[in-house]
């Protein structure tokens, strides 16, 4: 397994309720993401454990894109990945954000 830690600037959405939420399932080509309150309102934290080695640059690109598209400052995203493609990573993160907004 390869571990990645990333902290990125992002806007904060005060209307999001501070709660933990799990989205997705660890299975081949898929991932789960646990959303929790983070340490800093101006940044979001990503903790990634992935079965696919050597893709840190791709991860960085996908996570930067997510952090710029949504106000997710003050949140921590912990990911267990079993080889999800970049599109699936984006999709699961978007779905987790959607669930956060609607719950």
């Amino acid at each position, binding site marked *: 397994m390869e571990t990645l830690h990333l902290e990125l600037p992002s806007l904060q959405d005060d209307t999001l309720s501070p709660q*933990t939420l*799990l989205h997705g*399932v*660890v*299975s081949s080509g*898929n991932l789960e993401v646990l959303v929790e309150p983070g340490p800093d309102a101006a940044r979001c934290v990503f903790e990634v454990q992935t079965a696919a080695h050597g893709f840190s640059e791709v991860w960085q690109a996908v996570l930067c894109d997510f952090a710029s598209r949504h106000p997710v400052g003050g949140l921590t995203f*912990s990911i*267990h990945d*079993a080889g999800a493609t970049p599109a699936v990573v984006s999709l699961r993160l978007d779905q987790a954000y959607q669930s956060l907004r609607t719950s």
Partner: protein
Amino acid sequence: MMTSAPQSFREASARLRVQGLLDAGSFTEWLGPARRITSPHLAALDAPVSFDDGVVVGQGLLEAQLVVVIAQEGLFNGGAVGEVHGAKIRGALLRAIEVRARAVLLCVDSGGVRLHEANAGLIAISEIMRALFAAQAAGIPVIALVGGTCGAFGGMGIVARLCDALLISEEGRLGLSGPEVIETVKGVEEFDSRDRALVWRITGGKIRRTLGEATLLLDDDIAAFRAAAAKEMMGSKTMGDSPRQRGLSPDALQTLEAAQRHLEARAALDPGIRDGQQVWQHMGLGEEVALMDPAEFNRCLEARER
């Protein structure tokens, strides 16, 4: 009453199944994902772990009655039982006794023991069985719900059959050795695991209900599972009405004799029968059985069993 579109039990994750089965907003999870109680064995093998080790356990309300609910996630390592996963199920079953739950809903979606965890997984299965018997002996009915992608195989197939009631969808499957295992061990001539129709004629919900191994056949709809589980729970009129509890009562002999007669009748089936379709033919049921919806199918079997 508003009727909403059916939500597939098979397609839903373990978490969505739990939400759909219980009264809205009533679920409290035990050892939730934020606790990060993950498998040390998978980590030692450098394999991906899951925040909940592939099983959701907790308590909630079903028709305003306190129930314990356990739901395996079939997509994580085939719902296989490892040490942590098994301990969570065992603990939830024992907790049901402490909180005096009206019933336990056990959503089995598993290929059996998690091979990565070998003996720890095997021991976990036997611990689950003991805890299940303890809950039943305390008068708490355990209801198995089988309709996930993995079905109920291996040790969890046995666990499902130990339950007081077994609710299954047509898409659900129940067995001991799964199709791929049989094919690997005995060869493709014995069992072609890629022949989906054959797999379902041997292990699917319809044939399992026919052979008396499942209590009821259901539509692949979470609401149908919820309604059937509530009915089973209410049907056990009071605490102490679980069949396992009744087994300790004076009518135990009658219960055993009825089970024996059922097994003898099944053993007396033509030994040449190798397929669900042949079972239905033998029973005098035509090919239309395969096309019956669950309600019609249950009625057809209940009429024969009367």
